[in-house]
């Protein structure tokens, strides 16, 4: 007797939400338009460096790195629901681990001369993850805003340590060179014959962002990701269903800190130099803003938010030309730097009140509007 083989699940054309198997629903690109649009977006991103000037490329490269950091914060805050104001601390740990590993041994700051990206990048992530695991016991004992305050304290302690430990950090106002992006003898921060320095860095960060984003996406659609969401939505219910709060909160902090560490390590390779005072509360708030403005609990939202927050300063720089009472130099009142900071605050408030799902939510609304156009539903 022969059994008919199970029919291969297939997608019906014109019925994008009709799934015939779980695997289909959980696929990374579960609809054709998604597949196409992401492909087109990636192709565009690869082409951008050949049409855009170096200044914008630097900004975009920093935006890609910030996206990695924002994805990290989104894993712990957006998916696992643990409010962390301490992201700057983990970014700092990654930045200094990488800088120390790849630093010049003959410099005045600590350096071991291991410039291979494949060594210092994972090392930065792992050291930061270690600190994440050390903080996690607090997270398993505390809930909600208690945790927010504790992680805020972490930023202040970190700021103090990095200011004082000048043999590692160079001290406030002086700083130290950032990690050297080198891969098997090829320096990304030195212009080659084919590509300029900024084009190379842009492409490097783009590739790294793609890798980190795919890894994160795979994590959050797996059992672990569902456990994170369960912890976020109702921790007691999650515990009763057999989701170990301690295990998953620790894991969330570890993964988030790993991402933060990697982002911190890469963040200053573009500028080449960094100062211990950068890792302050404002930086944590910027990352919170990226997550909230982009959309909590979405990977694509983290990237959108990070790009948005990174590009805001560049856009406000343009303001004095159009709005006459805003001064371009820091001595004037109101100047672009003040406008920029106020804008962070107002954007956070505005998005939380009017569009809690962030840019991702706006995108979903746009998409749904056009899906059934010209009918309203």
């Amino acid at each position: 007797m022969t059994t008919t083989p199970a029919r291969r699940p297939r997608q019906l054309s014109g019925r994008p939400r009709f799934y015939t198997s779980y695997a289909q629903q959980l696929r990374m690109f579960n609809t054709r338009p998604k597949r196409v649009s992401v492909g087109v977006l990636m192709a565009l991103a690869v082409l951008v460096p050949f049409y855009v000037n170096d200044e914008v490329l630097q900004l975009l490269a920093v935006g890609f790195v910030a996206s990695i950091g924002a994805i990290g914060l989104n894993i712990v805050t957006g998916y696992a629901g643990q409010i962390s104001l301490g992201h700057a601390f983990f970014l700092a740990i990654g930045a200094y681990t990488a800088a120390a590993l790849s630093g010049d041994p003959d410099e005045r700051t600590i350096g071991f001369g291991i410039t291979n990206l494949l060594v210092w990048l994972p090392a930065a992530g792992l050291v930061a993850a270690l600190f994440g695991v050390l903080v996690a016991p607090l997270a398993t004992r505390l809930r909600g805003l208690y945790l927010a305050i504790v992680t805020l304290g972490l930023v202040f302690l970190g700021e103090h340590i990095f200011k004082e430990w000048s043999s590692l950090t160079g001290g406030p106002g002086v700083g130290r060179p950032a990690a050297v992006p080198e891969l098997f003898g090829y320096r990304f921060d030195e212009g080659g014959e084919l590509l300029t320095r900024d084009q190379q860095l842009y492409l490097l960060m783009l590739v790294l962002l793609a890798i980190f984003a795919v890894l994160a996406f795979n994590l959050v659609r797996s059992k672990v990701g569902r456990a994170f969401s369960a912890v976020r939505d109702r921790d007691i219910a999650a515990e009763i269903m057999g989701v170990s709060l301690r295990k998953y909160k620790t894991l969330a902090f570890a993964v988030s800190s790993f991402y933060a560490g990697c982002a911190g390590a890469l963040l200053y390779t573009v500028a080449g130099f960094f100062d211990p005072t950068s890792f302050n509360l404002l930086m944590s708030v910027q990352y919170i803003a990226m997550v909230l403005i982009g959309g909590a609990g979405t990977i694509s939202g983290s990237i959108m938010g990070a790009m948005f927050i990174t590009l805001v300063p560049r856009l406000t720089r343009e303001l004095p030309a159009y709005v006459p009472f805003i001064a371009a130099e820091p001595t004037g009142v109101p100047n672009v730097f003040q406008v920029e900071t106020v804008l962070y605050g107002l954007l956070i408030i505005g998005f939380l009140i009017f569009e809690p799902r962030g840019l991702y939510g706006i995108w979903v609304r746009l998409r749904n509007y056009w899906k059934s156009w010209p009918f309203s539903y």
Partner: protein
Amino acid sequence: MIEFLQGVAGGLGDGSVYALLALGFVIIYKSTRVINFSQPAFMLAGAVLVSYLVGPLGFYLAVAVGVLVTAMLALGVERVAVRPMIGKPVFAIAIITLGIDIAMRVVVNGFIGTDVRQVGDPWGLASRPLLGVPVQERHIAMVLTAAVAVALLFAFFKYTRIGLAMRASAVDQEAALTQGVSVGTVFALSWAIAGGLAAIGGTFVATGAGADQQMWIIALKALPAIILGGLDSLEGAVAGGLIIGVVESLVGTYQADIAPWLGNNFAVVSPYVVMLLVLLVRPYGLFGTREVERV
């Protein structure tokens, strides 16, 4: 010994300012379950207002007006940015207050500029002997003011109708609502009280050295104080504030000799170390209500 007692006295003075700020945090937390991260901005606003008003009005009247205006400001912020968020996750509201803080501080900093603004207090850095220990007059004033403010607040919560309503809605908002308590008024009033307390605290912080753009960080030291005391305990906020003040002052006195490897100005971050240590032992602070989860 004199050095130690001087440290304790200075610590109690600073600590009573932390206590005032901490009370603001706790009052808002009790009524709305939100930590108001915009407290630093209100503190700064209060101090700057006083520094502008002190010329025409004199110190005491300037403080009174500054407190009132800051309270109105807090009231307005609650109305515009926090009230629409009722029923939303507290995390979202807390982050909104963080956004308010950032935006507001930039505006206030614009009024400070790069210089230091004096609040024109009558004490300056003068000291007088108290039981044989020289104590700064401003620290004595801080302790006395804080004591009066705390006594007034506790009396207000215990004996007035609206105080009772505030306590009721802190225990159970819906039950209070069904008994005819206007929870909206309670929210507004708790923000106003917190704003007023922040203004008093800010003025005292600015006595002595004056108000500059970095002053806001001091308001965040009330956070370790409320964690120490427990987020929902008024007594805890006062005790926590005093403990943090004394610890910070003593660390400042002795750390350079005993543990120089901790670096300069370790005293500034010592409250956060105390907070971490206490939380490892008692997750809900010294006086906080232990959350009991029933399923």
